Structure formats: structure tokens, C-alpha cells
């Protein structure tokens, strides 16, 4: 197992009290596997990613739980050690490629610097390596593009450069937070293919954080659905998306507009209400105020993930099914 998060809890201490943004989140990502982490705004998916990378900014902090990378616990490492590890073993891609690139250096210089720092290459070898990376992520004419600055690239090409940078140190884990959200659909499709290829060909474990179920469906092997700071369902993409077990996942899937040829205009299923604020997460199951299937037990006590078929869901509906069996 490349990455393991165990009972991760992220808190924000504020003047008005402690807010729990990520609560008891556990998952793992294997070699060459793409784990999708999906949820709506405020679900805690990005914070989970930041917590894994050790990039939480105060007042946010990991209050409990453990993060393991290749069998080594990394959440308690000193700052400097974690920093070295992050650059070398974890590659990161954020939503906005411009924010990840230095506008004053050519992309060639940025790529070479990263490779030099982490792999210690120099001279011809270094240049060859950088060019090969640009070619791998699908930059046409890498020789010519090497001397260009970030502003000379389009949004999609910039995101490719960022992916090349993330892969430069040959990380074993790639964390991509909304990597396709700022892109047009045609470019989005190309980045999806690229991320999949990286996982298959390099064996990189990928944690793909997104709000877009379509992207998850086409890219991920397994998916964790988050709601109000918790994983409410986790399993193989095929199972979770096509036979959702948690009422939230089911509602989410039904509310996604789909291109149905010839079906014409139709009404979407909708989940009433909105995700609760962190300061107002209800007792019991956090989804119960919006849940069409809630019953007494959901109001009082919080369900943990329990096995349902091939996946796991945190919903009391399945506890009664298990008990009856």
C-alpha cells in the first residue's frame, strides 16, 4: 500500500470554538491505483488532501489520526524532513496551473531545477530528462517550448507542464486537486487520459480530488464520497456510481444532468437543503436533515462505515439489513 490515512481528523481552532473539518477519515491508495475523492464544496476533500501532504495552514491542524506513506508514518515528521519527502515522493497538481508556476522563469528552467534538486542529474542527462518529461505529458515540440515562459502557454498546456513538474522527481504518489476544473471540456478529456496513463505506466498511486462525478467515472478505480467532513461511501467506482448505497450518493448521482439523446427536457431529482456549515453539523448522521430515508436511529447516533455488498457505506439502513441477516 502506498498511502494510508487512518482516522484522520482535521480541526480549526477559532475564537468561537473548534471546528472539525475532517472527521475520522480512513482510506488507502495502492500502486498504480487512482482513488477519487469526491464531494461538494465544504465536504472536506481538499483539506484531506492538504492534511496528507502536511500542507495544512494554521489554524488548521491534524488533531488525530495517522498518515502512512510506503509503510512509514509521515504526519508526525519534523517540518524539514516532511518537506524533503514531499518534493521527492509526493507530486502535487492544483486547480490553477498559473499558481504553481513561476512566471519569471522558462518552463525548461523550472523543470530542470526540480529534476536537479531531486534526482541530482546534470548536463545533457538533465536536459534529456526534462525534454522526455514534456513529451510524456503531451507538449508538442518540447524542444521549442523549452524556452517559453508560462504566460506563453494555454491553460491546458500549463496544466500539462504542472503535471510534468509533479512527475519530475518520480514520485510514488500524485495528489491532484481539481486538476481539470479550470479547463475546457476538450482539454479536460486530455488531462483525464494523461492522469490515467501516469498511473498505469509509472505505477504511481493517484489521489484525485474533484467535485465532478464524470471525471471520477472515467479516471478513478475506487472512489470515496465525502459529506460534511466524513467519508459516507467508499468502494469500486463501478459499484459506488452505478449502485450507490448511501442515500447521499444516490441523491448526488440522480441530480447530475446527463446527456440523454432524444429524451428532451426533464426534471432532475434534487436533494433538498444544503451541506451544513462546519459550526452546525447535526448530531447523529450529518446527512439526516436532508435524507429522504431517515429514521429514528439516524437522529441520535452517528453511523460508521459498514460493509454493503462490495463497498462500504456509513448509513444505518445497512445496519438493520446486516442485523436481520
Amino acid at each position, binding site marked *: 500500500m502506498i498511502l494510508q490515512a487512518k482516522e484522520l481528523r482535521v480541526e480549526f481552532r477559532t475564537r468561537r470554538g473548534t471546528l472539525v473539518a475532517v472527521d475520522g477519515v480512513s482510506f488507502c491508495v495502492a500502486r498504480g491505483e487512482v482513488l477519487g475523492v469526491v464531494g*461538494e*464544496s465544504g465536504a472536506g476533500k481538499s483539506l484531506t488532501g492538504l492534511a496528507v501532504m502536511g500542507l495544512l495552514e494554521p489554524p488548521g491542524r491534524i488533531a488525530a489520526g495517522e498518515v502512512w506513506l510506503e509503510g512509514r508514518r509521515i504526519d508526525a515528521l519534523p517540518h524539514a524532513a516532511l518537506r524533503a519527502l514531499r518534493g521527492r515522493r509526493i507530486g502535487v497538481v492544483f486547480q490553477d496551473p498559473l499558481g504553481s508556476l513561476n512566471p519569471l522563469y522558462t518552463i525548461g528552467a523550472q523543470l530542470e531545477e526540480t529534476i536537479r534538486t531531486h534526482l541530482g542529474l546534470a548536463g545533457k542527462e538533465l536536459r534529456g530528462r526534462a525534454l522526455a518529461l514534456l513529451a510524456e505529458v503531451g507538449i508538442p515540440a518540447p524542444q521549442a517550448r523549452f524556452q517559453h515562459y508560462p504566460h506563453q502557454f*494555454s*491553460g*491546458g*498546456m500549463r496544466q500539462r507542464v504542472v503535471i510534468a513538474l509533479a512527475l519530475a522527481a518520480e514520485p510514488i504518489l500524485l495528489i491532484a486537486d481539481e486538476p481539470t476544473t479550470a479547463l*475546457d*471540456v*476538450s*482539454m*479536460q*478529456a*486530455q488531462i*483525464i*487520459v494523461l492522469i490515467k496513463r501516469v498511473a498505469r505506466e509509472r505505477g504511481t498511486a493517484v489521489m484525485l480530488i474533484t*467535485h*465532478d*462525478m*464524470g*471525471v471520477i*467515472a*472515467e479516471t478513478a478505480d475506487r472512489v470515496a464520497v465525502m459529506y460534511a467532513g466524513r467519508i459516507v461511501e467508499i468502494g469500486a*467506482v*463501478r459499484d459506488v*456510481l*452505478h449502485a450507490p448505497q448511501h442515500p447521499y450518493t444516490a*441523491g*448526488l*448521482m440522480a*441530480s*447530475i*444532468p*446527463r*446527456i*440523454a*439523446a*432524444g*429524451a*428532451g*427536457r*426533464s*426534471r*432532475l*431529482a*434534487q*436533494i*433538498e437543503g*444544503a*451541506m451544513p456549515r462546519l459550526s452546525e453539523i447535526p448530531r447523529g448522521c450529518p446527512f439526516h436533515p436532508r435524507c429522504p430515508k431517515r429514521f429514528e436511529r439516524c437522529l441520535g447516533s452517528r453511523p460508521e462505515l459498514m460493509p454493503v455488498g462490495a463497498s462500504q457505506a456509513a448509513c444505518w439502513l445497512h445496519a438493520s439489513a446486516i442485523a436481520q441477516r
Partner: protein
Amino acid sequence: MRAPLLSVEAVTRDFDVSRPWLERVLEGEGRRLLRAVDGVTLEVRHGETLALVGESGCGKSTIARLMVGLDAPSDGRIEFHGQRRQMIFQSPYASLNPRWRVRDIVAEPIRVLRLARKAEVGARVARLLAQVGLAAEDGEKYPHEFSGGQRQRISIARALSGEPDLLICDEPTSALDVSVQAQILNLMADLQSRLSLTYVFISHNLAVVSQIADRVGVMYLGRLVELAPAGELFSHPRHPYTRMLLEAVPRIERTGEPRTPVAGEVPNPLAPPPGCSFHPRCPHADERCRRERPEFVDAVACHGVQEGRISFAR
């Protein structure tokens, strides 16, 4: 056929993106024009939802602003045959004044357009808030007390308060989460049938468009390349660009299936390719496409389709 509510005739909109005058003179550069909308002709019919789709830089937002009258065309004509037009913007954060109470935000068009007597404004605002699924008490609050979806409801209430016949919606759900997006799309459909509204719906999201539109126009680099009833467009796309766009949308039904990657990306609109602007990415392009700009004939602008070179067999 119903008479058009709004007609757009050969409309072009150029933006001057030249560098400052002194720099131009010193370096002997000319003016640079960006043609955001390039000879678009279409009409909006009473009571329909016309969607305009395309990728960034295709001119869809510019045409929305032209249609609502926020901006004037450089060339061509826009004729509106109704009473009033209103607009709903993409960001429910930037489009509401944070210092105003919701009741004042919603009442502003009523006051400005003098649609009601002073004493009646309050009741009318309460009715509008109820119509979009908010409580009358919400009128006393400020925008920051609401979530993104509720704010978009406020935007809709404000647009409706001007009693428009035509609502131009520029990416109204793009900033929202999917579960909230579904609520807003359903609300818009309900309001349309209840108040017999006409919508122009601008979006980059084909799935959303397929859910709400009666007719769909596809734009590429400022030009309208295809216009068809929604059912037809999604089942039998004709223009190669429309097909590519449909192919590119990630689909939930396609879990784990390999996909043919879409090639290329939208060229720089400052230097659009000659001839058909889609030709560098088009698998069917030939010599004529590289040279000659296709006319918009029979609802599609494509030489290949017009010459019968591109088949529609599926």
C-alpha cells in the same frame, strides 16, 4: 411558427486590445482587434429556452451581453420585440451588493422601473422571494448570510422583479455544487412554465444544456457553427466540432471504458485560422476548408456537411 422575441442579425463585436498609443507609435505597431462575435444570426422565439454552448473564448458571454443590451454590436443588428430583458450572472457572490439587504436588492428593479406603488413594494418582494423558494423573513438579511444556491435564488428573484419577458442567463449554475445546481435548474423550469418566460441560457456544460434547452446553438471562435433543436443536436450532431464536444464530455455511463482522446485546443482568438476556423482540429478538413469560410446554411456552417462528405450514420 411563433414570431421571434429577439432577433440577432449578422452581429459582430470587436474589442480593441491594442497596446497603449505611445507604445504603438514607438514600435510602429498597428491596432489589434479581437473579434469576439463574428457575424452571428439567430432568433429567440417566445417561450423557448435557447442555449448557447461553447468553450472559453467562443464569444458566448459577449453575445449574452449584446442580447441584454449591456453592450452594443460593432456591426449588425439586434432587435428586441418584447417589453423588458433581465440578466442572471454566473457568480452569485459578485452580482449581489453585500451592503444591501435582500429586500432592497430584489426591490431595486421595481423601484427603478416604477412597476408598483411604494406601499405595494414590500408585498411584491415577499411574493417574489416565495416564488424562488425563500422565506419572506429572508428579505431582512444580507447576502453573506446565504449559501451560493440561495444567493442564486436571490439573483433570480431580482431578475423576475423587473417583470421581464426575456431572461438572459450567463452560466447561472456553473458556480454551484451539483445538488444545488439541480435545485436551481428545476426552479428555472418551474418559473418558465408558470410565468411563460423566455430564456437564453449560456453554458459550457452540455449535460446541463441537454436538461433545460429547447434549441441549442454551438459557438466556436465567435461564430455560430450549428443550431438545432436539442433532441436533434444531441442524437445527431452534424458539425464536426459539435461531435467533438459531445465526445469530450466525461460520462458516468462510461466508467472504465477507454476513450479516444480529443485532439488539440481552441486557437488564440487574436489570430484565428483562415477559412473555417475549426479546420486545424477537424478530421474532415480539406483544401476548401483551409481557404474559404463556410456559410451558415441550413443551420450548420461546415463545407463537409454541405457537400455531403460527412455522413451521419451512427
